[in-house]
């Protein structure tokens, strides 16, 4: 019994100390961003590996999610004779929820896990401590550019996801199922608001990008420097990112769309 209590206490303490280290890491990382600005080359390289390489999976998933929404929405809406509102349904669900959330989950799986593994391996092979020996701050040189790249890429990817999904819904809706193309776009334009819907979706994806990059980089930096430690850290990145994204999505949705 005493052992159990001691175990519980130890776990609680270690998770709080991890949160503390994480916050400290985030502050260091944010401070390091200033020194990235005069060296855009570092940022560009990371934008390539974090953003451009995630583009394919994001666009293909967006296309299929939009097509499925078009198909399912058509079957439900045709029961009420309201097929013409298909565009509203597809666009609202993509722009408000699915675009930011699904692309953030894919981003955590595709780019977040790669970041954790990369940083963890750098730590295990003592590249990070090597840099410190040469008086190069690894936070400024390695971590901050990756953080900034993730933070900037996420809203771009989410916007692309939504846009491609809406086109996918249109392909299925008016191409295969015969919803009037004009009605698809016109009803969408009448119902969706730029600030309330689209900008709020972009804000969501900015928050998700921030959190996902933070978790991925911190888990890598905090990993036990063995092959097993890195594999665990990578798993934790994906799991924790998914939890944070979905939990934050609920809070953000309640804040943004609560009053209508």
């Amino acid at each position, binding site marked *: 019994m005493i052992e159990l209590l001691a175990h519980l206490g130890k776990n609680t303490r270690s998770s709080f100390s991890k949160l503390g280290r994480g916050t400290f890491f985030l502050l260091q990382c944010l401070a390091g961003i200033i020194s990235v600005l005069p060296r855009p080359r570092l940022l560009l390289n990371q934008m390539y590996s974090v*953003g451009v390489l995630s583009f394919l999976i994001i666009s293909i998933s967006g296309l299929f999610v939009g097509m499925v929404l078009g198909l399912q929405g058509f079957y439900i809406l045709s029961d009420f004779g309201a097929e013409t509102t298909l565009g509203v349904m597809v666009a609202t669900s993509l*722009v408000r929820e699915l675009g930011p959330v699904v692309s953030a989950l894919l981003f955590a799986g595709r780019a977040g896990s790669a970041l954790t593994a990369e940083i963890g391996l750098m730590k295990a092979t003592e590249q990070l401590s090597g840099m410190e020996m040469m008086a190069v701050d690894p936070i400024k040189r390695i971590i901050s550019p990756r953080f900034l790249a993730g933070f900037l*890429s996420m809203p*771009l990817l989410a*916007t692309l996801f*939504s846009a491609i999904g809406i086109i996918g819904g249109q392909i299925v809706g008016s191409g295969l199922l015969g919803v009037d193309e004009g009605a698809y776009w016109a009803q969408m334009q009448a119902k*969706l*608001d730029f600030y309330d819907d689209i900008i709020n979706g972009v804000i969501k994806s900015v928050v998700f990008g921030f959190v996902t990059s933070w978790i991925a980089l911190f888990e890598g930096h905090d990993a036990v420097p063995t092959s097993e430690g890195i594999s665990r850290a990578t798993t934790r990145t994906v799991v924790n990112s998914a939890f944070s994204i979905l939990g934050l999505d609920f809070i953000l949705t309640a804040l943004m769309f609560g009053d209508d």
Partner: protein
Amino acid sequence: MQHTSTQDTLVGLFVAAGITALFFLALQVSNLSALTEKDSYTITARFENSGGLKVKSPVSAAGVKIGQVSAISLDPKTYEAVVKMSIYSQYNNIPSDTTASVFTAGLLGEQYVSLEPGGSEEFLKNNGAIEITQSAIILEKAIGQFLFKSAEEKK
């Protein structure tokens, strides 16, 4: 440095694609263009009951959208709904004896304000008021009245 320059191009394309997607969402998916490009002036109308009218509900004349509802409030003295409407400036020749009514588009559609122009030579100006109004038809009320009436007739 062939490798880096292709990388640069790809990053540039990626960022450009993201920004294009945002423009696409702004112009094609939402109604940003309809809201910003037109100047408008405000007129008010008082309704006994504004029904399900909301801010941004359309205002139309002869089925053509000429503006939108900008604010709805309750007059604390007369208990009437005060509906402010922004009308696009190109439609600046609405007669002062125009009738405003709240209608529903279709059976389950959204509610909108319909303006029926009168014959006056004077036109409504900014902050002008429409005097003749017709309230929204509340379906429950209409059914209630109908039932009451048919019960009376049976007596």
